[in-house]
């Protein structure tokens, strides 16, 4: 549905050139929730600007449904949440949504209904008469999400969508994205929040210095042979942990940090613990598969 083919983009000023994106190739399928992660300055914002047709790539091609981004946007529109909430400060919240609804091509007789439902969905009812400049960062972000959901777009692009949201609304956003999953819709999320990407996305691309480092398929089962560190919390039987898991270090409140283990060794150890009458209350990986991949990708890049 969205394809990047050997896309490169360079910013030129009088005295220097910055290669923001280099030879970037990617395909995002309809029905997919796709994530983009990378350190600051990795090229995420440039990729999003290219995807929305706000600028054209220096080399390569981007196609959405087979047409260049600007042509796609002008024909169909994209639901877009920007990291920077640039809305004229004197507009009122409801007015803002009515304006964007008109621009989105929502028929006049549906505008009021759509706007009211977006306000309701994002919990903005008590702020509907406030000016944009009076909104808190979190409410502004919710306004950004609301305007992107006014119309059922086939392509949604979220740039740091939970930036400034409190935990309640961050969770709520996850629910909304789950509801947005549809067979003919592609959802693209760029975020620094790897936990969020891990929970929401089917695949995540990691970029650094404008290059695609790797793509992680989060639906694929983890390789059995992969070694991961875990945090083990015990209800009782703490004294057996060191014997079963050599190298485990004890933290506070009955928690141990286990050294990197393969799944087979981990499960054997747990069975041994339980066999000795110990009770395990929690076992969590110290880092998710995405965090691990991200760390490896960015570290590799730095080594190069």
């Amino acid at each position: 549905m969205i394809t990047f083919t050997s896309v490169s983009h360079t910013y030129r000023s009088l005295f220097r050139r910055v290669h923001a994106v280099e030879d970037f190739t990617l395909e995002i399928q309809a029905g997919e929730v796709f994530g983009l992660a990378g350190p600051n300055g990795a090229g995420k914002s440039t990729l999003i600007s290219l995807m929305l047709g706000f600028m054209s790539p220096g080399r390569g091609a981007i196609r959405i449904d087979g047409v260049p981004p600007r042509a796609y946007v002008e024909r169909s529109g994209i639901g877009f949440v920007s990291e920077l909430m640039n809305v004229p400060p004197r507009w009122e919240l409801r007015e803002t949504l009515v304006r964007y609804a008109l621009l989105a091509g929502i028929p006049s007789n549906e505008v009021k209904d759509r706007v009211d439902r977006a306000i309701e969905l994002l919990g903005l009812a008590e702020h509907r008469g406030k000016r944009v400049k009076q909104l808190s960062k979190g409410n502004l972000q919710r306004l950004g999400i609301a305007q992107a959901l006014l119309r059922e777009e086939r392509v949604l692009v979220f740039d740091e969508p939970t930036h400034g949201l409190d935990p309640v609304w961050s969770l709520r956003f996850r629910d909304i994205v789950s509801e947005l999953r549809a067979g003919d819709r592609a959802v693209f999320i760029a975020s620094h929040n790897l936990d969020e990407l891990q929970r929401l996305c089917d695949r995540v691309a990691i970029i650094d210095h404008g290059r695609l480092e790797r793509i992680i398929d989060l639906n694929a089962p983890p390789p059995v042979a992969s070694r991961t560190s875990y945090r083990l919390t015990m209800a009782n039987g703490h004294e057996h942990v060191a014997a079963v898991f050599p190298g485990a270090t004890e933290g506070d409140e009955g928690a141990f940090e286990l050294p990197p283990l393969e799944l087979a060794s981990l499960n054997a150890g747990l069975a041994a613990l339980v066999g000795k009458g110990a009770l395990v209350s929690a076992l969590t990986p110290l880092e998710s598969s995405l965090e691990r991949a991200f760390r490896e990708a960015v570290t590799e890049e730095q080594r190069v």
Partner: protein
Amino acid sequence: MTDATGTVAALEPTRSHSVSPARLARYALWQLRDYFVDKAVPTITLILLSVYLTLVPAIVTYGRPGPSGAPRGFVEAFSLTILISILEGALLATTGIVADDRKLGYFRFYFAKPVSVQRFYAIKFGVYLTGFLLVLAFLLGVHAIAVGPYFPPLLLPIAALVFVAVGGIGFLASAVWRYDWVTLSAVVFSSTIMWGLWEKATGWRAVLVRILPPMDRLGEVVGAASGRNALHALDLWWLTGYGVVCFLLGLVVVGRRPLAKA
């Protein structure tokens, strides 16, 4: 969709809306409101200041227009006031008309919607012209009541064309970069001076002066609109044509220049 505290209901199934250009016409009403909120008050303020400096002394000196006509000195001052008003109106209307949306990032949400960038700004320019004419008509109405009946029939049509002549240059400047009002002011002043100095020159001076808009004709054109002198249609069309070409070039720039820097 449900309320914020309930479980999240499914968003409505995807369906396409017909994206008609008519919606930009509906959005134009918001742009007209933006004109009145952002531009009309400073425009009226500057025009009233010009009235105070040019028209009021003329009224005191030469008297008001009456049923039998207007004193010559009044017509001269009226013409000058209208000229200044159109220049101020066009300058204020086109300052930031494109550049502010880039600079302040407003383009991000406008142009993620199914909206043609060029059509959006073409309509905005037309709306701001309409807003200016409404402001001018309002002030002329107030003038007719407060000072006397003087409303030359060609005034508003010619004011519209002169607005296009000056505003078109401002639109192009705003499409190219953020220093639009400086550029427009510089073009208006420098071309007025250069046309005055080098209209009959030869060589590179003749070439240079003909690249610039014929701003020295503005006085005569607006004088005709104010009933001071006969209209030289060629001057009017040259000025307006220059503005239209600049406006169209501005639309080309708007369509080609990247909206985002990053």
